[in-house]
């Protein structure tokens, strides 16, 4: 009960933040407020029992989305001209629609109602069958990787396609990416002259990597999995790029390797599906991967989570480098 009150308080802050984001005409400020919005969102997800979702929102919202938006702002300018087009009409439409949606919510089941239609269909079935068929504690991972493996395959390919799309858009024209030429005495790229962030950042990067791997492989037992781990590992590399300059980060993980990661993860996922077909099962039916169906499930889940993680890392890093390189040409 009191937790719900906490949740409502967080929701009020959420609405205020959203209003402020829309009202401000400085895009830089809007991006920073988006960071606060993401923190509030994660806290709300956590209060609503969605630990995995909150972890994903944390991994994406703390860092990566800010970095991407700032990368785009550096190329487009941070000042908005301000004002709205058709303000009254838009306000009218929005108000009327809000009232209609709020009116409609009175027919919805109340928060936490165990008899709600959502809880009558496959949800309880997943919860009931997970221990018997897959035998891992995290039901979210079980549903994500095994029961609804097709969905996740589709999502991974959407991520893949978006990554390829950004590469197409931003590496074309203007002679593509060229090696950056700087005079020798110019201040070095990155934050080399800022000792405190550099020293502490360099010290933390291994821990972020380690934690990313923990989230990747502990995903069967606690909150975590490929999507979160991919974002965390990407955040570590982005931190390295910010501290030492993109050129240095590209020397450590060249673009060609990143492109292989993007394709390789998705391929690994698909390959597991094909492998299970060859072994006599259905596409993405991991039970045939080992003599014991449950062991087969475990192997399948670990491998496809790895594929997801690799693709997400690759795509996020490709996107980051594409924006960074565009600014330098």
């Amino acid at each position, binding site marked *: 009960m009191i937790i719900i009150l*906490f949740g409502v308080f967080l929701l009020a*802050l959420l609405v*205020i933040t959203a209003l402020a984001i829309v009202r401000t005409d400085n895009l830089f400020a809007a991006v*920073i407020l988006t960071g*606060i919005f993401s923190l509030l969102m994660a806290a709300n997800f956590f209060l609503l029992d969605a630990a995995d979702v909150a972890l994903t929102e*944390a991994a994406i919202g703390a*860092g990566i989305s800010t970095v991407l938006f700032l990368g785009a702002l550096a190329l487009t300018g941070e000042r908005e001209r301000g004002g709205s087009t058709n303000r009254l009409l838009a306000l009218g439409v929005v108000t009327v629609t809000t009232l209609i949606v709020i009116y409609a919510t009175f027919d919805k089941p109340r928060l936490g109602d165990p008899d709600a239609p959502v809880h009558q269909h496959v949800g309880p079935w997943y919860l009931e069958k997970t221990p018997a068929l897959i035998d891992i504690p995290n039901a979210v991972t079980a549903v994500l990787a095994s029961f609804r493996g097709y969905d996740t395959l589709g999502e991974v390919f959407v991520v893949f396609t978006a990554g390829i799309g950004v590469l197409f858009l931003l590496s074309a024209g203007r002679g593509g990416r060229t090696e950056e030429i700087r005079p020798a005495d110019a201040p070095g790229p990155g934050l080399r002259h800022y000792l405190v962030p550099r020293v502490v950042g360099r010290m933390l990067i291994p821990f972020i990597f380690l934690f990313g791997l923990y989230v990747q492989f502990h995903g069967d037992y606690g909150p975590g999995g490929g999507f979160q781990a991919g974002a965390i590992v990407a955040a570590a590399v982005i931190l390295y790029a910010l501290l030492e300059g993109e050129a240095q980060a590209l020397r450590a993980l060249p673009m060609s390797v990143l492109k292989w990661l993007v394709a390789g993860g998705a391929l690994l996922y698909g390959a597991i599906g094909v492998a299970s077909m060859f072994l006599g099962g259905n596409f993405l039916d991991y039970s045939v991967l080992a003599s014991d169906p449950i062991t087969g499930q475990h192997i399948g889940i670990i491998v496809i989570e790895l594929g997801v993680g690799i693709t997400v890392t690759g795509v996020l890093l490709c996107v980051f480098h594409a924006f960074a390189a565009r600014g330098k040409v």
Partner: protein
Amino acid sequence: MYYAVTIATLVTMALALVRALLGPSIYDRLLAANMFGTKTVLLLSVVAFLYGRPDFLDLALVYALINFIGVIAVLEFIRERADTDSAQKNSGE
């Protein structure tokens, strides 16, 4: 007792949000966002114990580890912009 800490954290979040809304400069907003991050770490740790599921501390750990990347990114953004500005000034002379 956990509830008292949670309420203190929530109220502080509201105060930080007010600072983020008032500004006046970008950096005040950024400061507020950064405070918000620390407060979220505390909130998540306390709520994990309120729920009796301490294995969810991973979430607070993520924020403790990578929340400062946003501020670093802003520093890099400002530095990049200052570099470009001074380069333009030099070439203009």
